[in-house]
């Protein structure tokens, strides 16, 4: 048991898997010699050498193409896309190639690969370096989408993603890199598609993801003091989606709130909302409410960015109002 930061959990998860499986390789920009621009991958080059841990040119299409080609011929590559926003320069390889290959080839090709990226806002990096792109990935059939909210989950879900036989988009919350917690020693392997209840309560269900989880918890704690008890579910992955946990919880509480970092339109919260209103409409006792960033590019000034992203206060206020009416 020792303190582990979210940042260092990345290297730990990768190292754990590289030690047990020689087919795991890792590539990206500035990831090897420099240990990553977010200092998430320090020590990997030293331990595994330049054959397995490789720096690349600024060529995201080549990085992901190389990962894809390697995955279809026996390797299990991990590729880093530095900021999730940069998926836009290689989206073809992700959405048109990687995601579709297995289906198009009638199952001939499997692609055991992981693409990691620093996702989301909160660090004043501006509109092109702060996007939460989970919904881009969720909208593409053939991609699994994972987004851990704690250091332990980074290790366990990253290990699960690396062992998964399908392509996984692994979104690290850059606003959580500095967060730490006590994590046990030894191998940690988690399971994709399993949400976790991080707060219990029968008055409402709050579903959150990644950096919105601590905010939802803070809101729930605030509300608990007022006697409003919310169950907070950390989805942990969007594909596979643990709809069962969501449906069970909402069936119990009658109310659903979703908290999304992404801009409003077509977010995963809309998907969850539509599932709930289609499948357990009769259990709902009031409107489903989505809490999101407004449908705007993220502004860079601290004052504005703070306003844009869902905050604990906004979550609490939204739930409070909705339950009161």
């Amino acid at each position, binding site marked *: 048991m020792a303190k582990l930061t979210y940042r260092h959990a990345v290297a730990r998860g990768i190292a754990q898997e590289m030690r047990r499986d020689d087919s795991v*390789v890792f590539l990206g920009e500035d990831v090897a010699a420099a240990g990553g621009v977010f200092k998430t991958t320090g020590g990997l080059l030293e331990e595994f050498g330049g*054959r397995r841990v*490789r720096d*690349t*040119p600024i*060529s*995201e*299409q*080549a*990085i*992901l*193409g*190389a*990962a*894809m*080609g*390697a*995955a*279809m*011929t*026996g*390797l299990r*590559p991990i590729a880093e896309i530095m900021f999730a926003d940069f998926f836009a320069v290689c989206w*073809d*390889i992700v959405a*048109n*190639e990687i995601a579709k*290959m*297995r*289906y*198009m*080839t*009638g*199952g*001939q*090709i*499997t692609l*055991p690969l992981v693409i990691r990226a620093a996702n989301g806002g909160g660090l004043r990096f501006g509109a092109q370096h702060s996007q939460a792109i989970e919904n881009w990935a969720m909208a593409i*059939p*053939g991609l699994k989408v994972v987004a851990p909210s704690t250091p332990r989950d980074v290790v366990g879900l990253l290990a699960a993603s690396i062992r998964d*036989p*399908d392509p996984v988009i692994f979104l690290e919350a850059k606003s959580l890199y500095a967060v730490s917690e006590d994590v046990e020693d030894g191998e940690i392997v988690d399971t994709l*598609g399993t949400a976790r209840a991080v707060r219990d309560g029968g008055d409402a269900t709050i579903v959150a993801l990644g950096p919105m989880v601590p905010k939802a918890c803070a809101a729930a704690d605030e509300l608990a003091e007022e006697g409003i008890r919310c169950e907070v579910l950390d989805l942990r992955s969007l*594909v*596979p*989606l*643990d*709809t*069962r946990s969501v449906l069970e919880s909402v069936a119990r509480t009658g109310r659903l709130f979703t908290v999304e970092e992404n801009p409003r339109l077509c977010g995963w919260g809309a998907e969850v909302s539509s*599932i709930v209103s289609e499948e357990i409409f009769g259990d709902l006792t009031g409107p489903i409410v989505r809490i999101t960033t407004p449908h705007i590019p993220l502004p860079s000034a601290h004052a504005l960015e703070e306003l844009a992203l869902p905050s604990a206060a906004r979550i609490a206020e939204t739930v409070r109002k909705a339950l009161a009416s």
Partner: protein
Amino acid sequence: MSAIKESLVPPDEGTRLNLYRSLVELRYFEKRVYDLFLKNLVGGTTHLSLGQEAIAAGFGAALREGDYTLATYRGHAHTLARGVPMAPILAELMGRGTGLMSGKGGSMHLTSVEHHVMGSYAIIGAHLPIACGTAWSAQYRGSDQVTVCFFGDGTTNIGAFHEALNFAAVWKLPVVFVCENNLYMEYTPIGDVTAVPRPAADRAGAYGLDPVTVDGNDPDAVYVVAREAVGRARRGEGPSLIEALTYRHGGHSRADPAKYRPEEEVKAWLARDPIPIYRQRLIADGVAASVLDEIDRWALDAVDEATEEAKAAPPPGADLLLKDVWADGSATWRN
């Protein structure tokens, strides 16, 4: 036309007969596909290699089992040239359940992992980076498998081309990039949209590679250049970029009557049809016409047989719809 210094030895007779067999096989096959889409038995879109067969054939002959190839939507020829049987390809084009990918991919995505045909790709440029990956994997595993990646002249203007070439050169990957310059990107002459006369060869230097061009209508020449580049790759000497000059006999795709091409240009290139020329050359070099006739017959029979087989096959079952998104065979995204 530099860089290719050694092994200018022409192919031996066995190889040449092999090349001829491959050429006519591809030719008859593609003609049959054309007939079948006129009969509405092949749906969607289709891109034929009629006129360009010498490139797929030449490379096919220069490769070993286990070497990887990646092609474009214009990939029937490249798939056949690796030994993939005709019937499942035809069945795929006809949307049958016995298709090479059970009917789920279609004409533009022919893939046969069993034959190391690692896919046909329909988004321009995408497979060049992917070819870097199969080559990297071979390098990493210490195998001596070579990757060959085919694409067109128009493809040299898209970003992925540039990224892949630089990446392959820096990592010294065992990959051969083969640009089939058929003078047109779809309907627009390549010269109208490209800053250099030779879209691939004139850019080799940008990646520290030697410029290589070859007559893409000459199977012997293609074979020799292929053998050389593949050998280099196999020996760990890094990537090559080859520009093969050729011409397609028909339109870009099913929908295209190719009216945009000057008549004299078409005539001149039809006169350079690789197959009759190669046939003449083999006969001049002492091969009996009857041997070639026999090969022709065999190829035509093979196409006929495959056609009947594909025609007789049923459409894919509805159960395939939700199959094989994931490695577990399912399409399930939720519990």
